[in-house]
């Protein structure tokens, strides 16, 4: 029986990986210049064999695939961060927004837009904003020292996140309503429209650096979901593991937000769907969330750029899809956590 459960979750992960590959191929086929799957595959083969010079080659490798790869990374980052926060805080309703990460990164980035900085500097500011927010939240929680560390941490996150939201509003008021405000608004709604291959080269290592410690500590992170006392008594260095999870999940969230803008719901909904498929064990939820988050955002982003004549903001699509899915999860999956 036990072996079957292990095997079953391995099969689910394999199917999810194949599904992700399929969505990536589909996304590469679709666009203003559609290509059949055979052409896409042979273009990719050509690319690794030295590169081709057809229009499809340049469309795929300069525009479409960098964007698809960015969707893979951002989707995986947001979903794994959500799964990690949910396990760490023993609360299935938290998401990367909970520590104010998204708000802080958002504030940093819109400030960069207001100051008319180049794209890379805007991303760097977003990243710094996200990281700074978490440091402030953590320092605040430590200063307020209470029996319930986690509750104080979450409340501090909400407070600092609200401040970041006020900062964003201020930037919007100050922004030039004809040039900057539309860019800020669009960015706050989430978009991968401006992604270039160079962006992916920066995002990829940062997301990997964040995901590796989460993958390595997967079992001990799962044990943390029993609460501090039990985890300590079971032999876990709670302080170290918790600090690692917060640092790693914050790194991937801030990286994602700095490149894609604010995309909500993925960090909240995808881990729930992952738990429905593979159960609540974090060592299984982590890879399942990464694969599902990636596939989900690739699909959403493909819809965003092909469904209408204009780019549809990603945050809008994830909200429209995420809200009803979450209600359905609440109704159907209550027993998953109660």
């Amino acid at each position, binding site marked *: *029986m*036990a072996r079957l*459960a292990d095997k079953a979750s391995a099969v689910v992960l394999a199917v999810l990986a194949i599904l992700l590959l399929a969505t990536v191929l589909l996304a590469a086929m679709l666009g203003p210049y559609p290509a059949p799957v055979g052409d896409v595959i042979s273009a990719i083969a050509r690319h690794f064999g030295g590169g081709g010079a057809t229009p499809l080659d340049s469309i795929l490798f300069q525009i479409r695939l960098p964007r698809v790869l960015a969707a893979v990374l951002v989707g995986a980052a947001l979903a794994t961060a959500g799964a990690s926060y949910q*396990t760490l805080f*023993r*609360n*299935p309703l938290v998401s990367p927004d909970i520590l104010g990460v998204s708000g802080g990164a958002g504030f940093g980035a819109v400030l960069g837009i207001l100051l008319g900085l180049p794209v890379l500097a805007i991303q760097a500011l977003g990243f710094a904003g996200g990281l700074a927010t978490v440091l402030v939240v953590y320092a605040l929680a430590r200063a307020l020292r209470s029996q319930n560390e986690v509750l104080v941490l979450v409340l501090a996150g909400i407070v600092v996140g609200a401040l970041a939201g006020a900062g964003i509003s201020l930037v919007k008021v100050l922004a030039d309503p004809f040039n900057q405000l539309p860019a800020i608004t669009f960015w706050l709604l989430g978009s991968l429209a401006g992604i270039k291959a160079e962006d992916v080269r920066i995002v990829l290592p940062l997301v990997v650096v964040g995901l590796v410690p989460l993958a*390595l*500590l*997967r*079992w*001990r992170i*799962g*044990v943390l*979901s*029993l609460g*501090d*006392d*039990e985890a*300590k*008594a*079971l*032999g*876990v*260095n*709670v302080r170290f593991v918790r600090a690692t999870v917060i640092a790693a999940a914050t790194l991937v969230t801030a990286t994602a937000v700095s490149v894609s803008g604010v995309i909500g719901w993925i960090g909240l909904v995808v881990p729930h769907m992952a*738990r429905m498929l593979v*159960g*609540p*064990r974090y*060592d299984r939820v982590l890879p399942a969330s990464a694969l599902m988050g990636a596939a989900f955002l690739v699909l959403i982003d493909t819809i965003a750029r092909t469904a209408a004549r204009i780019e549809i903001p990603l945050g809008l699509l994830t909200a429209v899809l995420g809200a009803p899915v979450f209600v359905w999860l609440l109704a159907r999956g209550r*027993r*998953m*956590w*109660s």
Partner: protein
Amino acid sequence: MLQARKLAIGYGARDVAIDIDLAVARGEVLCLLGPNGAGKTTLFKTLLGLIPARGGEIRLGGRPLADLTRRETARAMAYVPQAQVMEFAYTVLDLVLMGRTAHLGPFAAPGRMDRERAEAALADLGILDLAHAEANRISGGQRQLSLVARALAQDAPLLVMDEPTASLDLGNRLLVLEKVRALRERGYGIVFSTHDPDQARELATRVAVIAHGRLAAYGTPGETLTAETLSDVYGVPVRLERTESGRLVVTNSNAGSD
């Protein structure tokens, strides 16, 4: 195996109780009695190393507890908390597997050997058939036994149980007590807290009574479970009666009408 000397326990700057001396070895059962709020839970947490001692010393396996890593402590001493509903829907087997954590490498997850150890622990307590049941959806007694199984899977010679029979119905209480007795006979050292002096009489080799900010009584059940001690500790005049089988029946000596 576990010794406390001149121990002072408490939170922050406040002593809850001081001057606590106690010890438990393999095959011994130390039972903690005391009114609510007297510091049983604080003492438990201190003995487990979850909160620092405010004074004195605790030794585990001859070494100061404060010098041991979490991993070393967990290999010597397993904690059986009161069974509670969990936030996540773990299966009983998942829960018991977590008992293996202290035996895993820092980056490892349990493998086949760990699963076999977990299943053996479940079989030991007669609940292997619950392995794939959701831990939140079994009875309180079964959940308590699952946590005992997790402690057995931890392969630690000392078990620390926080009111293992609290909030259990009569059948489950008898079931859990029977398992505790069996573990004692197999040579585990056991520390457990209870509100029932008769449980202490039945299982304990030694009883520690915490009250009035100190160790109010410490010794064999015969020495400690007296009407004077219990009256003093609980603040209610009690009368102790022994049944023919040796059981202790505690009644309020003011309310007695017979």
